[in-house]
């Protein structure tokens, strides 16, 4: 009944003011489809992209990234920096000034107490908050007055834009979530499904793993926005079906993350109802090289734990393996306009990206020559080269996924051409990425010589991500096989340089160190970058104002979306 009234209201608004362009709710309904269905609208309890992005239409952070990866003030007047005095000289404190007059969708004022509460909510020891890393290193959050938030860090923090910045760290309303701290978080169904926010829309009805209906927020700060009166946010199905719904049948206006083969996308585009848009964040498809010995004959405490690998540590071997790969072909086959040749561990932002010679061209002859020169030749005539008597025979694993299996087949062929033997394995994604310490098939355990997957980082600062190359982050039995240094890369110079990065505040210097660290990993046999992957989404031709943002929620500027009359 409530929904019907709202719809009628929306229809009435639409009928009365068709000419007024910039008026709240004048453009009727917008329909968004995500092929992964949102389960909860509280990003602190889920961390899944689908949940973070759907919630980003309702709850908002203090500042967020725009499509260029630059910070823009959202609920504050300006982004604090050392230059404007918002960040203390010793880099241990950041002061946010909340914009005056902001209100929640229920009409109550938005104050610094809400921001402080959000910090307490996420850092509660029993809450199981998914965004805990956002608050890493924070020692206190103080509220001198209603509009000022002072975040103090334990030590100098060159990048203080973790807490309350970006779609993953929005502000919750203290009044609504007061009883949901810690272990009670899971019992707050009503709050988790209908959070009160400052965003352009409010939830009308939330059907978990199915559909969300939203209506324009009457108390949104810009009286002319959002242009749409209602939103239908459908979840579920497949990337294929959501692409069809936007570009071929025109049933929906926006489809998220179409991970489909380039020819499939091209075919859909012929439908003429919508078009794909691509954006590039730091997502990199790569092959990780195991720096430890994955020999199955080793015991559970030694396999993929003891160094070195019998031959993958040899520069001639990993360099030849990289030279044998035709990256432009991989991009063309696997990703089309949603991919670029990947040459750097940190492919974006541009200023952090390193490159290496010969990244874009395949050189099978050069690879063979390099192996010959290093004395790695086929001495027993079985077609496989040996290094110190050990044949270059490898197991190459990845998750089950059509594009990845295509890549495996191609790369296997190239590597066999330069005299290696390659055995392929693919493992269901939920197991491979599952992190179950008891399973031999997780990517952390790495019971193979090389493995392929994609990884990325949030925001624009790669410091934490570059930390994935530190010696002590290697997964091993003592850490229950947890850890981000998947290739078990270990180099003193790298650790030292990374420590330097964490002490450096100057941006140009950080970028130089970042490039150096990135190059260090690729040059020293940590990994082989393959494809810099973009995000491909699609919107209807009649939907205006869409700006694809890979640095934050894709729906970051949904308040600015409007209907183009056609």
């Amino acid at each position, binding site marked *: 009944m409530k929904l019907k009234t709202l719809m009628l209201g929306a229809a009435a608004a639409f009928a009365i003011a068709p000419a007024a362009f910039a008026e709240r709710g004048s453009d009727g309904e917008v329909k968004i489809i995500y092929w992964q269905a949102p389960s909860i609208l509280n990003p602190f309890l889920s961390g899944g992209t689908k949940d973070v992005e759907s919630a980003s239409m309702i709850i908002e952070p203090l500042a967020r990234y725009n499509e260029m990866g630059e910070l823009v003030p959202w609920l504050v007047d300006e982004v604090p920096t050392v230059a404007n005095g918002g960040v203390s000289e010793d880099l241990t404190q950041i002061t946010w000034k909340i914009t005056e007059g902001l209100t929640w969708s229920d009409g109550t004022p938005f104050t610094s107490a809400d921001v402080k509460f959000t910090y307490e909510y996420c850092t509660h020891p029993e809450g199981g908050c998914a965004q805990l890393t956002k608050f890493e290193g924070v020692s206190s959050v103080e509220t001198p007055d209603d509009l000022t938030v002072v975040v103090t860090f334990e030590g100098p923090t060159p990048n203080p834009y973790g807490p309350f910045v970006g779609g993953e760290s929005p502000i919750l309303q203290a009044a609504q979530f007061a009883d949901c701290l810690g272990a009670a*978080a899971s019992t707050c169904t009503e709050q988790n499904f209908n959070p009160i926010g400052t965003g352009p829309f409010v939830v009308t009805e939330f059907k978990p793993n199915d559909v969300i209906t939203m209506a324009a927020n009457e108390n949104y700060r810009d009286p002319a926005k959002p242009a749409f009166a209602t939103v239908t946010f*459908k979840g*579920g199905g497949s990337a294929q079906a959501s692409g069809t719904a936007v570009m071929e049948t025109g049933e929906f206006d926006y489809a998220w993350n179409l991970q489909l083969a380039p020819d499939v996308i091209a075919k859909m585009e012929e439908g003429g109802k919508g078009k794909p848009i691509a954006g590039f964040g730091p997502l990199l498809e790569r092959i990780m090289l195991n720096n430890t010995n994955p020999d199955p004959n080793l015991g559970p405490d030694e396999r993929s734990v003891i160094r070195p690998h019998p031959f993958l540590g040899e520069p001639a071997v990993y360099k030849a393996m990289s030279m044998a790969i035709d990256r432009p072909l991989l991009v063309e086959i696997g990703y089309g306009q949603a991919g670029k040749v990947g040459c750097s561990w940190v492919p974006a932002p541009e200023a952090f990206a390193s490159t290496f010679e010969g990244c874009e061209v395949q050189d099978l002859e050069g690879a063979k020559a390099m192996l010959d020169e290093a004395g790695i030749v086929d001495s027993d005539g079985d077609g496989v080269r040996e290094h110190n008597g050990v044949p270059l025979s490898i197991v190459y694993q990845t998750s089950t996924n059509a594009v990845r299996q295509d890549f495996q087949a191609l790369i296997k062929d190239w590597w066999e051409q330069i005299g290696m033997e390659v055995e392929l394995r693919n493992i269901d994604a*939920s197991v491979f990425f599952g992190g179950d310490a008891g399973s031999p*098939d997780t990517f952390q355990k790495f019971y193979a010589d090389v493995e392929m997957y994609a990884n990325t980082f949030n925001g624009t600062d790669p410091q934490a991500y570059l930390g994935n190359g530190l010696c002590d982050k290697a997964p091993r039995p003592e850490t229950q096989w947890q850890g981000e240094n998947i290739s078990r890369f270990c180099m003193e110079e790298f650790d030292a340089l990374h420590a330097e990065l964490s002490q450096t505040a100057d941006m140009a210097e950080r970028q130089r160190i970042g490039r150096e660290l990135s190059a260090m990993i690729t040059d020293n046999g940590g990994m082989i970058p393959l494809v810099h992957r973009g995000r491909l989404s699609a919107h209807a031709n009649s939907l205006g104002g869409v700006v694809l943002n890979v640095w934050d929620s894709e729906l970051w500027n949904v308040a600015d979306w409007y209907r183009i009359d056609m």
Partner: protein
Amino acid sequence: MLTYAIRRLILSIPTLLFISFIVFMLLQLAPGDPMAQVPLTVPPEVKEKMREALGVGEPALVQYWKWLVQVGWIEPKVFIDWLTRDTFLFGWLPDTKLYNGELRVISWQTRSPVMDIIIQRIPQTLWVVGIAYIVAIIVALPIGIYSAYKQYSTFDQAGTFVTMIGFSVPPFFTGPLLIVIFSVSLGWFPSIYDTTLVVDSWANFKLQLQQMIMPVMVLAFQITAQLSRYMRASMLDNLNQDYVRTARAKGLSENVVVWVHVLRNSMIPVVTVIALGIPSIFGGAIITENVFKVNGIGQLLITALFANDLPMVMTLTFIFAVLIVMFNLIADILYGVLDPRIRYD
């Protein structure tokens, strides 16, 4: 008959306990992790904390016992409260207020009570799969009867051919095929089911029909294929019996022979097959629901499986187990009712 039914009902309790225990243990042994879908950018320590908050680390038997108490004791209380509070049927009774805030079965994905989501999903499934079942029965029975009566006629051959296609072509082929034809090319029906549609006017009823047609067709095609084969086989069995010849010999018309004598006897096995198939209506049609984005029970189960949402998977499979046990009992009883030769006492 009554004592038989009661005996079977009592016997079904240990059966269901056993089933639930086996399912629970199987799920415990299965690989997978509820945090698998959380992005790689969330570090392992944080994931571990999230797992703790969900209660994943507890010993298996403790988890099982908690689940059993929640499903067997707390959820019924919530259900009875709802019956006496909000329903027309029992609303006149005083509100029982049995439930007072104990922890219900909570889904790991949504952090909300599993039963609430199931209740939310059942209408979609019942509408689509239930109607498909009814359509299939209405279509399949006459086809089966006529094909058997005119065995090896053109109609029978054509029927056999079509049912073979129905048997062998999977819904993940027919579904997208229909979408390509009717949604993409012709634009007659929507390819995505709108679960927010409330049927409160003729226009909305028409929309509801439009969005139901394709999934119902796909499902009904499959069920028709199965049922019409059963019907045909059962009719053929009976048509060659001595009593049919006797009936004809004593001068009964073909109508009476076929519709009264043969059909009634042939229906006995078919009715049991239909009854046994009813639990599958509630189970939904996992693939068809996914293809047409009908967010019903089947889609719920498959997403829960992918997300390793054990409480949800466990509760859904248990409900299916209960339905299957119940409808087996009903089928057995129906058998006795339809066939006087069968006596259970």
